[in-house]
């Protein structure tokens, strides 16, 4: 989707204390053999800080930096990956109450780790469709420090990190203009994150440990017996999604200063994102990803905030936000930096 007159006016993150990989190895949480090969340095761990409180903290920063009054916010979209608090209860309204505290719609948008980018899209759609609207607050927040989750071994493809993030999407202006945003899905690949697990009763209601690798192992056992899973090259879908948003923005990869991508494992980043795009690690965000772990939909905002706050970007630069999620689905967005917040 080509965006018109939509900006990021404020950005905020809430990344908790890091646990170093060395400590994780010493305590027996992380495989010593992976210490070197993973390239990981530390992982953000929130302990008992609730996920919505990290979203609130990030949102307050984003609102302050946006210069918007609470009255300018016309909706709140919260986009977590994991459980937020009491079942059925609405985390988005809790976040709304503790930030702008206005009688506007608050809702949750679930799309795995692509939720932040798709929330930007729907926020832009809302602002474009409703003439009297001014701004939408988008938040994310997850804490995987729960029983039944081992963040260090839940998947071969990443170590889970905790954190919150927020952006104020505005028609009034901001530090970055949203040029385009979109995604490409592979419907049949939903099986890849389901494996052999039954749909009912939902596994969380049974208090079962989360083990994504066990689902993959189930599919690999079937594959070895000739039942081919719906596999695809992540890089092909990345290129399809990125080509589309670049074309809508009237740009090519040569125009992209940096790519803020999902904080998945280094071999996934290299083989699924960077090599297919024809760029190397210095144009990505591995330098910060390796210090946080994979914080759901928060990765791209942490990456962007890092690039802005460490002088990696200048006005006029273009940034590609890139996320791959369960679905499977890959999404991307193109930003033009207009000022350094």
């Amino acid at each position, binding site marked *: 989707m080509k965006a018109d007159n939509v900006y990021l006016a404020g950005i905020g993150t809430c990344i908790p204390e890091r646990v170093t990989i060395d400590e994780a190895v010493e305590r027996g949480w992380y495989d010593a053999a992976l210490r070197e090969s993973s390239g990981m340095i530390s992982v953000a761990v929130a302990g008992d800080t609730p996920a919505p409180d990290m979203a609130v903290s990030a949102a307050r920063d984003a609102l302050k930096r946006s210069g918007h009054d609470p009255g300018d916010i016309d909706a709140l979209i919260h986009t977590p990956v994991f459980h937020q608090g009491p079942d059925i209860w609405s985390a988005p309204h809790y976040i709304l109450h503790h930030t702008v505290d206005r009688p506007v719609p608050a809702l949750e948008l679930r799309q795995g780790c692509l939720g932040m980018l798709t929330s930007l899209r729907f926020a832009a759609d809302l602002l474009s469709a409703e003439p009297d609207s001014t701004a939408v607050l988008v938040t994310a927040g997850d804490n995987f420090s729960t029983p039944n989750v081992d963040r260090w071994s839940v998947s*071969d493809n990443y170590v889970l990190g905790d954190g919150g993030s927020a952006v104020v999407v505005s028609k009034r202006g901001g530090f970055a203009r949203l040029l385009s945003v979109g995604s490409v899905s592979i419907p049949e690949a939903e099986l890849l994150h389901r494996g052999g697990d039954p749909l009912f009763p939902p596994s969380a209601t049974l208090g079962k440990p989360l083990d994504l690798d066990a689902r993959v192992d189930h599919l690999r056992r079937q*594959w070895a017996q000739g039942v081919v899973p719906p596999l*695809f090259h992540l890089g092909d879908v990345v290129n399809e999604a990125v080509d589309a948003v670049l074309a809508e923005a009237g740009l090519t990869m040569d125009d992209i200063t940096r790519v803020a991508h999902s904080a998945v494992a280094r*071999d996934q980043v290299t083989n699924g994102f960077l*090599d297919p795009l024809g760029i190397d690690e210095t144009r990505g965000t591995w330098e910060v990803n390796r210090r946080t772990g994979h914080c759901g939909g928060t990765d791209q905002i942490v990456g962007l905030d890092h690039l802005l706050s460490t002088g990696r970007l200048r006005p006029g630069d273009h940034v590609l936000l890139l996320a791959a999620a369960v679905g499977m689905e890959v999404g991307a967005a193109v930003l033009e930096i207009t000022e350094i917040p």
Partner: protein
Amino acid sequence: MSRPVTDDTATVPAAPAAPTADEIRDAVARTVGVAAEAIADDTNLVAVGLKSLHMMQLINGWRRAGHRVRLKDLAADPTVRGWSRLLS
């Protein structure tokens, strides 16, 4: 680093020489982390540890060399013999 040639947009100037069965075997062995001797022409590569990520890595290399190949095709016949046919 040049962008690997993708399936649909490939414009290969001259057809590159197809990798031999032994070259494919060695590449798989190196990427998966097993001995090449453990891989016969008809060994199911999934049984020796092949994962989707390994295929992505192998395909990126083959595409850089100008070979047009899709992951789903390789996944449907995960043997050195099958891949030799697909890469020829």
